[in-house]
């Protein structure tokens, strides 16, 4: 049974604006501060990591957050007066200035979103008008959703002012759904974020209850959302504007009225959306949520009564939590390839660190060793209060291999894979590779990097065509003297040293792959004639001539492309 927690932030643009402009000014005013909504520090970090790592489905948001807003923006001068002037955020719509959002005070004096700014100013002269910044609001919402990962690994952004958390099977970590929702709301409240929360079996029901179920939090028992939904207005069904406007006109103001009507007629009259939303709310139809990271049951968390900050403690915490998750993997006969260890700081910033394995594994000792060097980079600030670890790429793994039944070769293979992981974690994924044959006769393209572990393809290079042991990424120009047009040079000068050619082999003609190049990049000038030459000391070189003798447009030039052993 799925359990969804829906969080709604009423007047989110106002909240986000307030936090953007004021909450950053008082440090220490709240130790449980959320990440400042504008992608700053930690959250920008997380987003960068995420696009490269686990989810990868939302690369678009990362750019904006790379340019963090200054940590402390100046407080607007009229802020300090303490007077609660009505506040409205403005936006320009089709050339008309309109109210984008209003706060409670403004709503109390009769202003509403969508009103013309001039009308509003005429009605309420003391109205304080500020510019709305919807993209920043979205960013702020995403920052909050990242922060919510401490509650559940599956968090989805819901529209422009809400979140969905899939809390199936995680609420016990908090001592129940109610305690979890309370903790969430309390922490948000201390940060000046008013919110409402509801837990239900479906996203639709949770959404409706959070917005229309009353103040605070609402928990619908498993399977018990229908009676709770019945008295709610039909706008609680997340309907499109047309239906939402038309249904009440027909007297269908509450959800319970809809329940009794014949489905076929409803569909004919209002389209399939109304019924679909109703079914989704009641759990009769599936609804897919776009989680900001793939939900994984392979998730664990450690909470500390006293925040930790010493490196040794971080290492120990990493070891403990890895041990716990690995034991679960062990019990269920599985191993994972990717692990993300996240340190949640007191001030809400999260520091994710990743470790990858090239063979699925669950050896806590190995993992801890992979994480250990990355922990030094973590800035504990005032302390770390929560550590979470999630595993990705989980797959079946045979039981731990004993020394008796496993062959030595398999054991050696595993040891090499562990070495590759250590090196790749320290030097980067692309720094450890195995060369693989690529079907191309152009020397630069004949090699492709492949995974360093796993079964390897046999070499496919032509053994009759000798190749140098060092191939320069860019051929180096040399001054060469050749006696006859199609002969190898008798002498050449490379890096200021003259070499007399004693023996030579060739030519081996290699043309550009014309199907890969624009038409002006192929032709006789780009055909290379390779020679293998040996100088009088025995040093062997790979030279080529590009261009043709006798053609004034493409005079031949000599290049040195590699050195033989």
């Amino acid at each position, binding site marked *: 049974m799925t359990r969804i927690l829906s969080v709604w932030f009423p007047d989110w643009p106002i909240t986000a604006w307030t936090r953007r402009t004021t909450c950053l000014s008082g440090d220490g005013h709240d130790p449980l501060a959320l990440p400042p909504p504008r992608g700053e520090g930690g959250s920008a970090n997380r987003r960068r990591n995420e696009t490269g790592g686990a989810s990868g489905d939302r690369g678009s948001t990362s750019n904006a957050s790379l340019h963090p807003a200054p940590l402390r923006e100046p407080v607007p001068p009229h802020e300090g007066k303490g007077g609660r002037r009505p506040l409205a955020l403005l936006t320009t719509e089709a050339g008309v200035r309109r109210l984008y959002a209003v706060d409670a005070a403004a709503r109390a004096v009769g202003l509403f979103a969508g009103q013309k700014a001039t009308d509003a100013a005429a009605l309420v002269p003391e109205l304080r008008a500020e510019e709305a910044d919807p993209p920043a609001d979205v960013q702020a919402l995403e920052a909050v959703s990242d922060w919510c990962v401490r509650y559940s690994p599956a968090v989805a952004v819901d529209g422009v002012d809400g979140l969905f958390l899939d809390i199936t099977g995680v609420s016990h970590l908090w001592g129940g759904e109610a305690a979890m929702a309370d903790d969430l709301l309390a922490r948000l409240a201390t940060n000046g974020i008013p919110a409402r929360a509801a837990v239900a079996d479906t996203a639709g029901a949770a959404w409706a209850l959070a917005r229309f179920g009353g103040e605070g939090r609402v928990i619908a028992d498993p399977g018990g959302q229908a009676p709770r939904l019945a008295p709610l207005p039909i706008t609680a069904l997340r309907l499109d504007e047309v239906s939402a406007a038309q249904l009440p006109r027909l007297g269908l103001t509450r959800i319970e009225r809809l329940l009794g009507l014949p489905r076929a007629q409803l569909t004919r009259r209002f389209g399939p959306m109304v019924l679909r939303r109703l079914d989704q709310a009641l759990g009769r139809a599936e609804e897919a949520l776009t989680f900001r990271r793939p939900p994984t049951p392979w998730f664990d968390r450690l909470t500390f009564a006293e925040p930790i900050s010493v490196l040794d403690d971080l290492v120990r915490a990493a070891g403990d939590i890895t041990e716990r998750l690995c034991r679960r993997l062990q019990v269920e006969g599985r191993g994972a390839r990717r692990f993300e260890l996240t340190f949640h700081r007191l001030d809400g910033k999260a520091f994710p660190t990743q470790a990858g394995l090239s063979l699925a594994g669950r050896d806590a000792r190995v993992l801890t060793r992979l994480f250990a060097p990355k922990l030094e980079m973590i800035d504990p600030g005032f302390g770390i209060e929560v550590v979470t670890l999630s595993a990705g790429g989980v797959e079946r793994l045979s039981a731990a291999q004993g020394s008796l039944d496993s062959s030595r070769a398999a*054991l*050696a*293979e*595993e*040891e*090499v894979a*562990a*070495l*590759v992981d*250590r*090196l790749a974690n*320290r*030097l980067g994924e692309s*720094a*450890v*590779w*195995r*060369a*693989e*044959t690529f079907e191309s006769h152009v*020397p630069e393209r*004949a*090699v492709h990097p492949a995974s*360093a572990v796993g079964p*390897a*393809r*046999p*070499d496919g*290079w032509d*053994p009759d065509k*000798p*190749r*140098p*042991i*060092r*191939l*320069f*990424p860019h051929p180096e120009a040399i001054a060469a003297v050749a006696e006859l047009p199609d002969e190898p040079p008798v002498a050449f000068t490379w*890096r200021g*040293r003259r070499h007399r050619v*004693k*023996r*030579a*082999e060739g030519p081996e003609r290699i043309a550009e792959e014309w199907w890969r190049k624009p038409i002006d990049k192929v032709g006789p000038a780009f055909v290379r004639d390779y020679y*293998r030459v*040996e100088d*009088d*000391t*025995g*040093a*062997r070189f790979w030279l080529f001539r590009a261009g043709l003798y006798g053609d004034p447009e493409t005079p031949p030039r000599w290049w040195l492309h*590699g*050195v*033989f*052993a």
Partner: protein
Amino acid sequence: MPGSRQARLTALKGQVAALEAGTRTPTSVLPFGDPRVDDCLPGGGLPLGRWHELASAGMEIETGAVAAGFAAMLARSMAGQGAVIWVMRRDDLYAPGLAGLGLSASRLIQVKTPDEVQTLMALEDALGSAGVAAVIGEVEDVDLTAGRRLQLACERHGATGLVIRRRPWGGTGRKPDTGSAAATRWRVSAAPSDPVGEPGLGPPRWRAALERSRGGRPGEWIFEGRQEADHDAHPLRVVSGLADHGLDAANDLPVRRRA
């Protein structure tokens, strides 16, 4: 009690010998299959589970091609025992060329490092891993401490290290060779090939001078690469022994003392 004193002395000498050997396991060797070379090496062959230094001269210090070829030939016969790992700062190593020398790319893991320190760290890590037969590293310099660490890593699982002294492009040379913890030190340069009557180039040849060898004596030879088809023989065949040089150096006192 002269008898017991003698016995105690023998026992002490045994202890000292054991201490000097350190944690070293009795090393196996890889014989070249030619007495001219094997006689100069302790145990009758290239010691495995140790690390060896390959130096070169001239432009070769920068390209490192000849030494790389020599190292590949030595590693070829070890590749059957486990993985071969090549750690380098410049990835101009060309796998088809290595395959041409008989070191298959499917057995070779390449590692690119950003700097000297990381190279040494990766070398040490690889040498100390089970399942690794040989590790080839391209470094500028190995000082005594680093050399000792490499040696300890070698001893853990018996991997053999081949360290190519290679200078980054355009860099100025470091200080000249001082002491080193390497088991052997070779100076490798190219030697003219001999195509025996055929046009073109013959099989690659190396002129290799064994400058230092713990427990052995120096010498100098010209090797020729064998085709991969000769599985049993050592990949390197001695073409000519420059014996006079070797004998001279063998009488060189400082060398013997170090040995």
